[in-house]
């Protein structure tokens, strides 16, 4: 099948900003939104935009991600032609002189240079995994083609805070949407600005040019060494995205954005309520959720396969969670198959997969500092 654009997803780029959650997995595999993993958004956005040729660049700890993706069939990406393809680091092509694995997007691209040259599409869409949105990439691609740009950056107008600025790239543009300059991870920035969502469309020929130039000059950063240098020479455009997005630059962000899904039904409906652009995820074949007699649930998001006997308030329960009798779960996020016994109290807790909390245990965090319980722990 001929495809207009090929997708490339960086599954690890932001691992160090969410270190607790990424100790056992890559950023892409972080559970989010009651039944999803972060990569589901990037993958679904591509599939819903007709891009069925998707490459996932991995770094380390990608067991969990591979397990999640499987053959790709839950995203309609198990295909004879195209489909989903993993690009793990290529040993003989370690990008930097120290022979360590890549740390930047550009190094990642260098290490899979061979694969990129085999793409048979005219355009390439690069996407990170830490941005949660439901975007029609077809529209971005059409604008990109129409404007004959070399690169189109998807940006979102945001009031930046200093913490966020440290992780972000700000893109300045003129009234016609031509990029005029970049501000790269500034120390202080508290104005309203167009922040890069790290969803970028490039002409494939230009991408190949970039990668071979980077290899010969030992370039390291896509933004600093390439985009900032080429901005006056090449045609760079911005695509101003208007719909809501969620980004995480810290564990606290992750917690707050998750809670926002409960509180803000419009945001929830924007992400999940569009029948033409559903967010796909791995199918688990669970039963519906059972609410027992005397259960008490309000203001919560619940996935299937849970059994709830206690009370759940302002919380998110992933698939297969059990809430025992007389147990109270408040302001918490319980990942897949978390088991809580009887008489347990959880407040501001994020429990990772397969956590077991015994009868009578009480754990409390604070709204500004939720407690994280790592995968498989028994308390």
């Amino acid at each position, binding site marked *: 099948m001929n495809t207009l654009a090929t997708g490339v997803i960086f599954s690890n780029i932001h691992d160090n900003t969410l270190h607790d959650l990424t100790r056992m997995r890559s950023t892409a595999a972080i559970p989010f939104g*009651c*039944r999803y993993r972060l990569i589901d958004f990037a993958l679904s956005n591509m599939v819903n935009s007709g891009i069925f040729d998707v490459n996932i660049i991995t770094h380390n700890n990608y067991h969990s991600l591979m397990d999640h993706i499987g053959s790709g069939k839950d995203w309609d990406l198990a295909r004879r032609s195209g489909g989903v393809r993993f690009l793990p680091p290529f040993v003989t092509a370690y990008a930097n002189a120290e022979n360590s694995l890549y740390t930047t997007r550009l190094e990642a691209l260098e290490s899979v240079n061979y694969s990129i040259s085999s793409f048979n599409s005219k355009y390439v869409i690069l996407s990170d995994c830490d941005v949660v949105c439901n975007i029609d990439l077809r529209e971005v691609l059409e604008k990109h083609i129409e404007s004959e740009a070399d690169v189109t950056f998807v940006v979102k107008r945001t009031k930046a805070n200093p913490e966020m600025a440290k992780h972000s790239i700000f893109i300045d543009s003129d009234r016609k949407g031509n990029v005029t300059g970049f501000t790269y991870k500034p120390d202080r920035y508290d104005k309203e600005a167009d922040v890069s969502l790290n969803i970028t469309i490039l002409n494939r020929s230009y991408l190949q040019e970039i990668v071979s130039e980077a290899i010969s000059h030992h370039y390291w950063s896509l933004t600093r060494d390439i985009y900032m240098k080429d901005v006056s020479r090449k045609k760079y455009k911005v695509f101003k995205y208007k719909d809501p997005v969620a980004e995480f630059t810290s564990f606290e962000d992750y917690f707050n954005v998750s809670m926002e899904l*409960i509180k803000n039904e419009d945001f929830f409906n924007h992400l999940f309520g569009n029948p033409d652009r559903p967010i796909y995820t791995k199918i688990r074949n669970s*039963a*519906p*959720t059972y609410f027992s007699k005397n259960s008490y649930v309000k203001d919560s998001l619940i996935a299937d396969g849970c*059994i709830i006997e206690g009370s*759940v308030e302002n919380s998110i329960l992933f698939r297969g969670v059990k809430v025992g009798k007389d147990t109270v779960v408040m302001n918490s996020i319980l990942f897949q198959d978390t088991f809580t016994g009887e008489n347990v109290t959880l407040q501001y807790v994020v429990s990772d997969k397969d956590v077991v909390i015994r009868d009578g245990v009480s754990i409390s965090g604070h709204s500004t500092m939720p407690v994280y319980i790592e995968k498989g722990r028994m308390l």
Partner: protein
Amino acid sequence: MFKKKECVAMLLAGGQGSRLYTLTETMAKPAVQFGGKYRIIDFPLSNCVNSGIDTVGVLTQYQPLVLNEYIGNGEPWDLDKSSGGVHVLPPYQGKKGSDWYKGTANAIYQNINFIKRYSPKVVLILSGDHIYKMNYSKMIREHLKNEADCTIAVLKVPMDQAKRFGILNTDDKNRIVDFEEKPAHPKSNNASMGIYVFSTDVLIKYLEMDEQDKESSNDFGKNIIPKMLDDGKKMYAFNFEGYWKDVGTISSLWESNMDLLGKNPKFNLFDKSWRIYYRHEQEPPQRINAGADVQNSFVTEGCNISGKVYNSVLSNSVTVEKGAIVRDSVIMSGVVIKSGAVVDYTIIDHDTVIGKDAEVGDGKENNKSPLVIGADITIPKKTRITGSIIVDHDNLDEVIGKGENK
């Protein structure tokens, strides 16, 4: 070339299911939604897969669109195989003409070629309208051990219900000595579950003989089984213990849904050793909002609950608005229950809307069987509908006209 299979399963899914009335108006009975996320056919199909049977013919006839679409390539049940897998078998036109399936036996007869290409030792005949978990491989093993020509699964039923079933009488070695279809005075309570294992050559011989018999109604229970018994064939009973329900009527469909609820349900869907597979719809998580009260109920992905839900089973994407009450009911996918509406002892089919402050159903105490509202219907606000009636597009105006407007 076709790989030889030990067993080919033939699933009879062509019945109209007329006793489910409007629920089978646009789909065959096996495609009716069940238990929140499932359709009835998921149970026999999952039983096949869990029993190691990977070649299944699904015989369809009545309103096949929904069922065909649902089965698709069989991927949800891992039945998308390069050899075997699930195949939908509709009636077809042959050299000598075409015919609808005249009876259960005739349906299999018309598809003898499907069976023959896998040269199976045994053929398993299943119905598409039962809710149960059963390891067919045990039954097949016993069939082979007994060197039987036919083995029939039986279940002990309460004596007073025995006359609704085909009743088997066996000797001390479990060999069948006598079979009566729906007897007025049953001699035992061993009811046939409509699950048969046949040795392939015997089955083919009897199907061909039955086809020659112009008097026959081409039915397994009425013709094939009695004929084989008369001929002294080796026929054994296989005793099944556990949950089994024929969901062919409105009351039994409702009851079977209710049997999923409770702390120790009669029928447990959370059993990971015997999973029931289904075709998944991508739906967001369920939202349980402020003001919701959900007790002893099943709620499924995509639901948005702000009202009260008691002792009910809700399929995916059901909305229960603030102040609405759903009690003792089975609600299928996409139904919207507007604020202030009361739904009591009712089965509501997919995508129907119950208007604001409407009252639908008047409770378990006052009725023998639940009220039924068909698919894609809008019940206007403040309408009151009571009794054990069936509301569909044909009688909707009449029912609403009669319904007392509050």
